[in-house]
C-alpha cells in the first residue's frame, strides 16, 4: 500500500513545484529567525527573495553539525519554546549533545513520513510492530512508535535491550515486525538459536533496520536467520529522525520523502554537485519543519541518488545504502563516536597530547571498540596498581562521556604507527 499516493507518485514537475514553494517559505523563516544563518546569507550577499525555486537551493550556505553545537541548546529553534512539544538529542563531538525541537506539526509530519516508510516496507494495520530501538533522547524508538500508531498497526514499545524478553514477547504476542539496529537483529537471532527457538516458530515477516551502516551481505544473513524481509530505513535527528527515507519491498534504494526533505549529492571537497548518479556527500534541506528547519545540512554520509521510477510505482527519489562517511565519525552499536571525543577524554587526564588508536571489530554480531593508549611518561607509574587504575579510569571516563564501553589496552610509546607526522587514529575492521 502507498500511504500518500498523490505525493509519493507525483511527477518530477509536480514535486519541484511543491519543493519550490516550501523552500521559499523555509528560507524566509530561517532568515528572519536564526541570526547565525542570516549572517551566512548576508556574507554572500543573498536575500530570502533570491530563492525563487528549488533550482536556487545550490546558492544557499551550508549548515554543519558545529552550527548546532555553537547554538546549543535551543539557538537554532525558529519558534518560541511554548511551541516546542518535544526535544530529542544525539551525541555531539565535544560531549555536548546536538539538540533538536519539534512542534506539534513537526511531530505529525514525522509520524506521516514514518507511516509512509512502514507502508513502503509492506507493513499494514494488521501487523504487530515490536519497536526495539531505544526510547528516549534517541529518535529511533519514539519515531517508529508514533509512525506505527499513525498507521493503525499495533505497537509493542519494548525499547532496546532485554533480549530474552524481546524473544518471549515475539512468541507470546506474535510480533510480525521488528524494528531495531541491524546488528541487534543479528544478536537476537543468535540468542534465539541459543534458546532453541526456530525463526519459523515466530510470526516475524518484516524487519525495519537502521541507525547504523550495514551491507547487502548482512541483509542476507539477517533474512536467512530471522526468516523475514530486512528493510533499510534512514534518518538523522538533525533532519527529523528515522523516516527521512526508507526502502520499499523491492529493496533497491531508499525512497526519500522529498516533499519534506530535499536531498543533494555534492563532492565533499569542492562542495559542488556531482554528475547525476555519482557518489558524493548527502546534503539535506528540510522544507516543512517548524521547530528547527535546517538548510543544506551536511550529513557526511556518502551515497548516490537514483531518479528512475521504482517498480513499486513511487516516484520519490531513491538513495542507495550509505557507502561510508566523509568525516571520521564511527557508528558503534547505534552510538555516534568521533575520535576527537576519545582524544578530549584522554587530554583531560594528562597535560600532553595522547597517542591512541581506536580499533573497531565486529565480534560475533556486536561491534567492539578497542582503544590502545601509549603509556607516555605522563601516564607511566612504577606500580601495577596505578597502571590498572589508569586503565579503569580511561574506561570509565569514556563510558560516562560517550555512553559506550571500550576495551582499553596500554601499549608502549611509539607502537602506534605515525603517518606523515599525524597518527592514524582509527582502524575499522568491521566487514559491513
Amino acid at each position: 500500500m502507498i500511504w500518500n499516493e498523490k505525493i509519493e507518485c507525483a511527477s518530477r514537475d509536480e514535486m519541484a513545484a511543491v519543493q519550490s514553494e516550501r523552500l521559499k517559505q523555509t528560507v524566509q523563516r530561517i532568515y528572519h529567525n536564526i541570526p547565525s544563518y542570516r549572517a551566512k546569507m548576508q556574507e554572500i550577499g543573498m536575500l530570502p527573495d533570491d530563492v525563487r525555486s528549488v533550482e536556487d537551493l545550490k546558492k544557499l550556505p551550508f549548515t554543519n553539525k558545529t552550527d548546532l553545537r555553537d547554538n546549543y541548546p535551543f539557538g537554532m529553534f525558529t519558534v518560541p519554546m511554548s511551541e516546542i512539544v518535544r526535544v530529542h538529542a544525539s551525541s555531539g563531538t565535544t560531549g555536548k549533545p546536538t539538540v533538536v525541537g519539534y512542534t506539534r506539526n513537526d511531530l505529525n509530519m514525522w509520524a506521516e513520513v514514518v507511516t509512509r516508510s512502514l507502508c513502503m516496507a509492506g507493513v499494514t494495520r494488521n501487523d504487530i510492530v515490536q519497536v526495539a530501538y531505544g526510547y528516549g533522547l534517541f529518535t529511533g524508538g519514539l519515531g517508529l512508535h508514533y509512525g506505527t500508531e499513525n498507521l493503525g498497526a499495533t505497537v509493542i514499545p519494548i525499547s532496546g535491550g532485554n533480549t530474552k524478553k524481546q524473544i518471549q514477547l515475539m512468541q507470546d504476542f506474535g510480533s510480525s515486525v521488528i524494528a531495531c539496529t541491524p546488528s541487534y537483529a543479528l544478536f537476537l537471532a543468535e540468542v534465539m538459536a541459543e534458546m532453541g527457538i526456530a525463526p519459523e516458530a515466530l510470526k516475524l515477516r518484516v524487519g525495519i533496520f537502521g541507525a547504523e551502516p550495514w551491507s547487502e551481505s548482512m541483509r542476507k544473513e539477517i533474512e536467512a536467520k530471522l526468516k523475514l524481509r530486512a528493510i533499510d530505513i534512514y534518518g538523522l535527528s538533525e533532519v527529523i529522525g528515522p523516516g527521512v527515507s526508507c526502502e520499499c519491498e523491492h529493496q533497491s534504494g531508499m525512497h526519500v520523502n522529498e516533499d519534506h526533505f530535499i536531498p543533494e549529492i555534492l563532492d565533499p571537497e569542492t562542495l559542488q554537485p556531482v554528475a547525476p548518479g555519482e557518489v558524493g556527500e548527502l546534503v539535506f534541506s528540510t522544507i516543512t519543519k517548524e521547530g528547527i528547519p535546517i538548510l543544506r545540512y551536511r550529513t557526511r554520509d556518502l551515497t548516490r541518488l537514483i531518479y528512475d521510477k521504482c517498480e513499486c510505482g513511487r516516484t520519490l527519489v531513491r538513495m542507495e545504502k550509505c557507502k561510508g562517511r566523509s568525516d571520521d565519525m564511527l557508528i558503534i552499536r547505534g552510538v555516534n563516536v568521533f575520535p576527537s571525543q576519545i582524544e578530549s577524554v584522554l587530554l583531560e587526564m594528562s597535560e600532553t597530547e595522547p597517542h591512541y588508536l581506536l580499533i573497531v571489530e565486529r565480534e560475533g554480531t556486536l561491534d567492539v571498540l578497542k582503544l590502545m593508549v601509549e603509556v607516555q611518561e605522563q601516564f607511566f607509574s612504577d606500580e601495577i596498581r596505578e597502571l590498572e587504575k589508569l586503565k579503569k579510569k580511561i574506561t570509565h571516563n569514556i563510558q560516562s562521556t560517550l555512553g559506550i564501553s571500550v576495551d582499553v589496552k596500554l601499549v608502549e610509546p611509539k607502537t602506534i604507527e605515525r603517518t606523515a607526522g599525524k597518527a592514524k587514529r582509527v582502524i575499522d575492521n568491521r566487514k559491513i
Partner: protein
Amino acid sequence: MIIKQVSVFLENKSGRLNEVTKILADAEINLSAFTIADTSDFGILRMIVSDPDKACTVLKENEFSVKTTDVVLAKTPNKPGSLSKLLDILQQEEVFIEYMYAFSMQDEGAVTVIRPTRVERCVEMLQKHKTELIRADELYQF
C-alpha cells in the same frame, strides 16, 4: 642509602625484554638485579643498574617509558631466618612495603630490594636496627 631503581613499561610481546638488555649492554651498563611485574597485557621491568641516569637516558632515546624509583637495598647473611628478621623490623617499625625482590650469592650474603611506602623512614629504621644497607657508591662502582 637510597638507591635509584629504573622501571620500564613493557608490553607483553616477545623480544621486548631482550631489546632493553641490548640497549643497556651497548651503553655498558651492568644489571645487578631485576624483576618483572606482569599483568595480562603489560608488565613493568624493575632493575638495579650500575648507572641509573645513563640507563634512563639511553632507554628514553629508544622510546621507552622509563622512571626511576627510590628503593632500599638491605644486605643480610645468606642463611635461614635472615629475611624473617628483616621483615620483623619493618613490621615492628610500621614500614609498609609496596613490593620487594631479592638475590643472594653463596658467600656474599643476600640482598633484598625494598620499595617501601616511606623510603626515608625505612632507611632510618633499618639503620637503627643495624641492618647493613648498600650505598649508592658501592653499587654504582663498576
